[in-house]
């Protein structure tokens, strides 16, 4: 079945019946929770978090029922359209909004609601003593609702509404502990980079509107093949800008590491499992645009490949456990982007890896949160070591996630990541060798830094002081309460088995086929067993090297100076320095004009771009002298300039 016929089929999605017609409930339930908790005020302090958790689970149940109804229908009739309200019915602006419940969106719905609900449960324990717990849960619910809207939308416009919603929730949650200035700055940085992405998205949407006269998926996809290839390339690149910002891909990756300032459950849910993967979703959902624009598709693959290596290298040098995990997330999303950039051979594997990654990475983040919980909120892994005996459950669950991300058979990552590496080797010319090679080397580096993280934390000699010896600096490692460990266990089971279950007989890829299109049998440039063996060899090598350095040998409590590469990696490969050189320096000395309140950094050096605009603003402000005579002169100059320019042009 070629993709054109498929597109035609996609245009005639049947209206929803039965439970599917109530798909709006998926979004409305958590949204109602957020509304109730925010408007209810202090009255809901006592039970608000329980309500939020219950509503999130309720949304999961609805999702499950919708899935069951979908499975009951034939392979080609599974997608359903749920009508919404006519957003803009006037004249030329026909904008109807509705939900598109198909195989792709339901997969996301289940991932979001399931992992999201588990993290709600985990947060009950994690945030138990926070005075603003109610607000935290309200924001979590808001996030779940927006994310569901994002994946269920039937048009780019509604998707954009969800896109902004998750951005807002993420902004609120990163800065949740905004009494710390660095955290507030991190929130601003995330906000800034995401605005860059939003610009790409908004222009893309308007361009679609101008080209196709509509922005719903069906019309855009149906018209994509006929529209000019230049338009499609521009459109694809604009969408890629949006995807890069949201998914922390090169060159818009700088915000993710700082975003770890938020509470750990947030990092697990938003900055590992769901929101950061929205970019991958966007690319796969827009596959017909990218299929019609090979250059844009190539750009996606290149961005993915660069980020994959970038994140892996940065991950090798980070001593902050959360930042190391963030670098790993960036790298894994790089894998997904690479897969999505490979075209039809890769789409399904991108989503597959996204789902398995959602489980094992969320599990590892929750594990990291559990470690921090027992170690007085410390994050420096050089001060950990030998924790396996003190936190058995955390150790085992984290270990399963570790095996999964390494791609050790039969754990989840093996089934999804190896497929991406194989797919990267498909093609002609230089591409399979470059992309395949990078993907394979990346797997080796991944094995190294993830093993480093695991060994430094749980194995080797203990490098912390017991509380009995030193009450001030000492810690008393202990296992976390059940509300925290149960979600970790559930996710660990997923990390262990999900890959195997979903890839049984190609089930998941077959499931997605009606959405992303099937592709013929294609063979990698290397034989599959060879690729698999080489990958496993690299993985084993990376893990063994990490074992030598961080388990067998002594780990220094203070980070050694390290080689130039290590230093560069520790400084995020100088991403901030580069940003600074490019955007910030022109306005640095004027940045102080921005700070007007409390010096907390609420508005301070939020991001390099902000500094540049602030600097320009301060300079321009001098034109506003306050003298009417100079205003009049400005006007006169303007008149003369416009008149002169037009005269010359005509």
């Amino acid at each position, binding site marked *: 079945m070629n993709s054109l016929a498929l597109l035609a089929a996609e245009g005639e999605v049947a209206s929803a019946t039965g439970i599917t017609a109530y798909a709006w409930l998926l979004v409305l339930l958590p949204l109602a929770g957020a509304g109730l908790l925010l408007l209810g005020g202090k009255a809901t302090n006592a039970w608000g978090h329980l309500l939020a958790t219950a509503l999130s689970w309720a949304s999961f149940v609805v999702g499950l029922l919708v899935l069951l109804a979908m499975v009951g229908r034939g392979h080609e009739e599974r997608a359903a359209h749920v009508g919404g309200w006519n957003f803009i019915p006037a004249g030329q602006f026909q904008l109807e909004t509705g939900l598109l419940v198909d195989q792709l969106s339901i997969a996301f719905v289940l991932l979001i609601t399931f992992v999201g609900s588990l993290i709600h449960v985990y947060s009950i324990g994690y945030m138990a003593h926070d005075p603003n717990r109610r607000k935290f849960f309200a924001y979590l619910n808001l996030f779940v609702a927006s994310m569901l809207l994002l994946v269920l939308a039937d048009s780019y416009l509604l998707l954009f509404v969800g896109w902004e919603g998750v951005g807002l929730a993420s902004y609120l949650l990163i800065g949740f502990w905004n009494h710390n200035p660095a955290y*507030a700055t991190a929130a601003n940085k995330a906000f800034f980079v995401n605005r860059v992405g939003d610009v790409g998205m908004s222009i893309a949407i308007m361009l679609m509107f101008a080209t196709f006269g509509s922005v719903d998926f069906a019309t855009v996809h149906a018209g994509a093949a006929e529209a000019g290839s230049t338009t499609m390339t521009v459109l694809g690149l604009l969408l890629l800008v949006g995807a890069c910002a949201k998914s922390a891909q090169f060159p818009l990756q700088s915000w993710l590491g700082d975003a770890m300032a938020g509470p750990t459950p947030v990092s697990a849910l938003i900055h590992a499992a769901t929101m950061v993967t929205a970019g991958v979703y966007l690319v796969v959902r827009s596959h017909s645009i990218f299929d019609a624009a090979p250059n844009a598709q190539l750009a996606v693959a290149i961005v993915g490949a660069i980020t994959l290596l970038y994140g892996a290298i940065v991950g090798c040098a980070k001593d902050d456990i959360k930042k190391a995990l963030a670098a790993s997330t960036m790298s894994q999303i790089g894998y997904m982007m690479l897969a999505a950039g490979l075209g039809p051979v890769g789409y399904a594997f991108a989503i597959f890896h996204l789902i398995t990654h959602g489980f094992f990475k969320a599990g590892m983040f929750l594990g990291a949160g559990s470690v921090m919980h027992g170690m007085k909120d410390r994050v420096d892994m050089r001060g950990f070591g030998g924790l396996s005996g003190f936190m058995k459950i955390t150790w085992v669950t984290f270990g399963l996630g570790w095996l999964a991300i390494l791609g050790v058979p039969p754990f989840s990552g093996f089934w999804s990541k190896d497929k991406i590496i194989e797919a990267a080797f498909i093609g002609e010319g230089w591409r399979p060798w470059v992309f395949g090679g990078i993907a394979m080397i990346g797997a080796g580096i991944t094995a190294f830094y993830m093993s480093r993280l695991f060994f430094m934390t749980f194995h080797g000699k203990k490098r912390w002081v017991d509380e009995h010896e030193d009450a001030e600096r000492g810690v008393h490692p202990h296992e976390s309460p059940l509300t925290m460990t149960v979600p970790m266990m559930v996710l660990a089971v997923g990390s262990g088995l999900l890959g195997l279950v979903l890839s049984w007989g190609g089930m998941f890829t077959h499931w997605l086929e009606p959405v992303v299109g099937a592709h013929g049998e294609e063979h990698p440039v290397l034989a599959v067993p060879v690729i698999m063996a080489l990958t496993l060899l690299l993985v084993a090598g990376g893990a063994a090297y990490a074992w030598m350095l961080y388990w067998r040998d002594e780990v220094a409590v203070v980070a050694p100076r390290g080689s130039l590469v290590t230093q560069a990696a520790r400084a995020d490969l100088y991403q901030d320095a580069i940003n600074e050189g490019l955007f910030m320096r022109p306005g640095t000395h004027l940045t102080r004009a921005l700070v007007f309140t409390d010096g907390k950094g609420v508005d301070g050096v939020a991001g390099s771009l902000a500094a540049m605009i602030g600097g320009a603003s301060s300079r321009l402000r001098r034109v506003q002298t306050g003298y009417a005579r100079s*205003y009049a002169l400005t006007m006169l100059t303007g008149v003369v300039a416009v008149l002169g320019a037009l005269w010359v042009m005509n």
Partner: protein
Amino acid sequence: MTAALTALPTAFEAVKVDYAAVGPMLVVVAAALIGVLVEAFAPRLLRHTIQVVLTLTALVVAFVVLVLVSVDHHGVTVGGSIVIDGPALFMQGSLLIFAVLGILTMSERFGGRSADAFTPMGAATPGSPAEAAADRAGYATSEAFPLTMFAVFGMLMFVSANDLITMFVALEVLSLPLYVLTGLARRRRLLSQEASLKYFLLGAFSSAFFLFGAALLYGYAGSSDLSKIASAITTANGDLEGLLLPGVVLTLVGLLFKIGAVPFHSWTPDAYQGAPSPVTGFMAAATKLAAFGAILRLAYVGLEASRLEWRLGVAAIAVLTMVVGAVLSVTQTDIKRLLAYSSVAHAGFILVGVLAFDRTGVSGVMFYLVAYGLATIAAFAIVALVRSGGSEATHLSQWAGLGRKHPVLAGIFALLLLAFAGIPLTSGFTAKFAAFAPAIAHGGLAGVVMVVVGVLASAVTAFVYFRLIVLMYFTEPTGDDVAALTPSIASTIAITVGALGTVILGIVPGPILDLAGRVSQFIQ
């Protein structure tokens, strides 16, 4: 020239006036004149109440006349000076609604004896004994209400003016009362008077440009009538070609001044800051709408045929306006100046829609103006409420932590800011969409460039608004005695209407967009 001479009528003919079509204007101007008589003859203590009742009644009557009678009287009237068509009626209706909201906010007394925003005696030297005595005696500048009505009359005429002379007269009729109103603030009077003087001087300067441009166009076309200018452009033989472009540019400059386009924007921050906040809100919403009404008519009816010659120049102004407005709003530390620069940036966004040269552009611009106006009036009404030690607390640092002390008020303000930022599900997003989409569809390469700049500029302004929201909600209060007063029923209505409008136009913009789309055809 001889042809023009022979065309003169030998006997006087009375012009035909369609009183039903111009009814709303007559009602408003009559109320303004009665308002002046009230000032002359009514007892001092009753004037405020009488004026509020009189102006509100007149505005409602004018709106009813507009909706029930004038809608069926399309056409050119008053000897070709006034044209009543779809866009004119839509904008006149919007203006009357803005005026009602503006009067409601201006009537705010905060429990005092007179309108709180206005000085007790405009002629007294600031800080002089005469001023203090006037304050003690409970004097009030209730002239503000008839002045507003004169301004509204000018605006109603401005959006329906069909020739350059009428347009100029309307421009002056709407401007002069605004100059006076700007100088009437009760507190920080020197700032207010300075603002008034600057606004007047620069306004006069720009009027001169308009008048000179109009003269050149008359020289070119032999008529100041917009449709005659249009036909002169299409049938021109090239003799007087040199007069056209300067005429177009200079008339447009006069109008661009009123919307605050860069580089004719310098008065905006000063006037917005100095004027009493309710006046600022009314001025920002209504003047902008009226001036864009005139620009639309001039550009679409009079000068469309020559647009290829001047469009790029105005496009450059639009780009400059968006960029300068957005960038300068970043470093503002005064809430009123911040909103002023935001209004400059919005003027640029709207210009993008104007330059689409398509019916959808007209409807998008009209929708944007309504959405922006509603939000602006409510925003300035809220600014007027936030006080410290009896006067408005306009420094941003004083707004820190406002969300904790006054969650509802700060929440509404945050909503309005989100609308200014163009976040989906608020009127701002729909409006930007309605104004930008036609520019991409019909504006060619220049349109696309303008939209790209526009989206970038709105990303910058979004930062400013978000920072303000963060300031209100996440920052500790500075410890000043900043507090929001409880608004009277009038202000409450104005703020509620503005906020509700912002939400409704964001979620179900259909009816208004539909209306704007149906009435977007000018009578040529």
